[in-house]
């Protein structure tokens, strides 16, 4: 068990013009399982490799248990690493693979045997000790790789996307095994993954990385419920959080009125006193709602939902997964009133089409925008296009039987005012400012 401290780590590869890791600092407490998560190329593996010593930081300091290890060779750092491709020695059997590091460290043969057999028993590998890796299944190979790390009795375990090469069922099983292992060994572990489900299920704390910068650190619950920004909100949670571009049209202490996707107006009743100073009428807002916090209602006029914010959406497709089902739709840009459904659908399509056209036109020549569509552009949020790809798409987790929605072209979706996220023009969670 050990505490790991990363201070102002910067990594720049000479082949790249940009820093791969930009001034990263983190404290890992003893016994924690910290998960680095982020999209590919965000620098999470580079960070892990620097902790392992396989890569040198350009600047910054890494210390383990208080002593500076930045310039210490990997094998002296008292860490063990589990690689994505297992990296087992193909010409050695399971026993030799696990014992290799111990033999090099000149540990007594009886101690080696004891440790290897203990680890093999823990990982259900006793029957395979004399087998070569090529005769093992993917899951068994991964367990050997883990075993090879365990026998070294390291202060720190490093996992580099250890489940990526396994099939879906085995991934779940191995994930649970790693979790149990951590519970049993209580050793500090650092785990790198691009899979947010692994992050949520395994982590004591999650570190969300994007483009070489730390976006947020927190327990899975904190990250899920209080994402600091649009990136974290969109990255954690499946299906992804819904994002809608909106404008703040009216503000009171206990209610905000938002104009969503240019047309639909919703009122969100919630205590906004704390954040009122940071809000301005007319400011662009990104409204975020998780699919599981939305509800499809059959009768929008019913009193129970009358005062709750409601959006109307066309139904594109319903996916039935058995235990749950999801509705994928598009929120209307025009109010439904006085229009037949087919007309509305047609309109939605046209609108969608012209929007694409506007964006591409805008890129080519910002002045040549059709004045009628210019309004759409006023809400453009620079730098956030990647996170909010299609602002009108909506995903809803259905609670009831999806069959009841069969044949429906459009539905009313109710938002829970306590469970909506509001992000400002820079993509920051308006409420997270209050917490910090």
């Amino acid at each position: 068990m050990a505490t790991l401290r990363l201070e102002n780590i910067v990594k720049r590869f000479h082949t790249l013009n940009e820093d791969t890791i930009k001034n990263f600092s983190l404290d890992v407490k003893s016994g924690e399982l910290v998960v680095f998560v982020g999209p590919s190329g965000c620098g999470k593996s580079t960070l892990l490799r620097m902790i392992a010593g396989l890569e040198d930081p350009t600047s910054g300091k890494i210390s383990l248990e208080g002593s500076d290890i930045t310039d210490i060779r990997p094998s002296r750092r008292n860490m063990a690493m589990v690689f994505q491709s297992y990296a087992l020695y193909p010409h050695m059997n399971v026993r030799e693979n696990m014992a290799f590091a111990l033999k090099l460290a000149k540990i007594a043969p009886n101690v080696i045997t004891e440790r290897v057999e203990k680890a093999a028993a823990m990982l259900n590998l006793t029957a395979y000790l004399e087998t070569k890796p090529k005769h093992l299944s993917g899951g068994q190979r991964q367990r050997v790789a883990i075993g090879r790390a365990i026998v070294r009795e390291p202060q720190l375990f490093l996992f580099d996307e250890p489940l990526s090469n396994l099939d879906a069922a085995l991934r779940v099983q191995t994930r649970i095994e790693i979790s149990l292992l951590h519970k049993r060994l209580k050793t500090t572990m650092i785990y790198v993954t691009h899979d947010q489900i692994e992050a949520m299920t395994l982590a004591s704390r999650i570190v969300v990385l994007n483009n070489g910068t730390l976006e947020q650190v927190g327990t899975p619950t904190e990250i899920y419920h209080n994402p600091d920004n649009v990136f974290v909100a969109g990255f954690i949670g499946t299906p992804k959080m819904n994002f809608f571009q909106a404008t703040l049209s009216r503000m009171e202490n206990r209610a905000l009125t938002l104009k969503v996707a240019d047309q639909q107006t919703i009122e969100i009743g919630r205590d906004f006193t704390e954040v009122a100073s940071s809000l301005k009428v007319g400011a662009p807002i990104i409204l975020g709602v998780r699919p599981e916090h939305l509800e499809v209602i059959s009768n929008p006029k019913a009193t129970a939902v009358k005062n709750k914010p409601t959006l109307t959406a066309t139904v594109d497709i319903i996916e039935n997964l058995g235990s749950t089902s999801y509705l994928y739709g598009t929120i209307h840009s025009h109010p439904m009133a006085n229009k037949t459904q087919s007309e509305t659908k047609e309109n939605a399509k046209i609108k969608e089409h012209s929007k694409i056209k506007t964006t591409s036109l805008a890129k080519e020549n910002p002045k040549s925008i059709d004045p009628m569509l210019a309004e759409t552009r006023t809400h453009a949020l620079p730098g956030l296009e990647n996170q909010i790809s299609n602002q009108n798409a909506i995903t809803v987790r259905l609670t009831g039987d999806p069959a009841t929605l069969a044949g429906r072209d459009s539905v009313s979706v109710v938002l829970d005012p306590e469970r909506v996220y509001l992000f400002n023009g820079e993509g920051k969670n308006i409420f997270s400012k209050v917490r910090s």
Partner: protein
Amino acid sequence: MMADYRSEKRVKLIIRAVSAWILAVLIFFPILWMTLTSFKTELQAISIPPLLIFEPTLENFTVIQERSNYFSYAFNSLFLAGFSTIIALALALPAAYAMAFFPGKHTKNLLLWMISTKMLPAVGVLVPIYLIYRNIGLLDSLVGITIIFTLINLPIVVWILYFSFKDTPKEILEACIMDGTSVFQQFIFVLLPINLGGIVSTALLSFVLAWNESFWSINLSANDAGSLATLIASYSSPEGLFWAKLSAASLLTCLPIVVLGWFCQKQIVQGLTFGAVK
């Protein structure tokens, strides 16, 4: 229709088999003729029409041993092929390791440059090398010919080993580093055992190429350091062409390497396909 298709397939198969056999016989014929000639007397060898049925004699082989001491040349061939292969491997293994696992900006260019030296006609550098060898006294010496053989095979050896190493996942080397190996231990305990197939086939190939090398050995050596190729060439002399003895010498040169090749077919093919058959 079914039957038609089936007979069509059969006809195609027969045509293919017959063409393959014709081609094989055409390729094999000179070797067969050389073997037959080596058992004839000089007179039988040049008789027209050529003799197919004759009483075989071992006279050519005994003459070769008596006049030229076959075993001395065979020893030279073995020495040259063996040592040039060992030295080439000793130089190429670290080179291929460095290029495969720690490539620089110009590694690809370097490889290309190395292989491009094989495209240079050897005769173009014969005169300078001959003069250098004469001046430093390496002409007709085993050391000198070993150096030349090493140098001409080195590019190919590095090239094949490079591709063999490149197939080894870098993560395995990183696992070694985490496990605490030195570079030397990495080589001995992990890299060599993993790539043993590739290394053995490269060594075989280098050995065969050195054994068959004739240009440099004929031009730079004579009795002392001459390989079997030199022996063959000595039977085509200004005094005349001795067909039967020439054939016998050729047979004695080909035989060992053909036997070696026969037993190591798989490894040699593997080496030539750069590990694609692994």
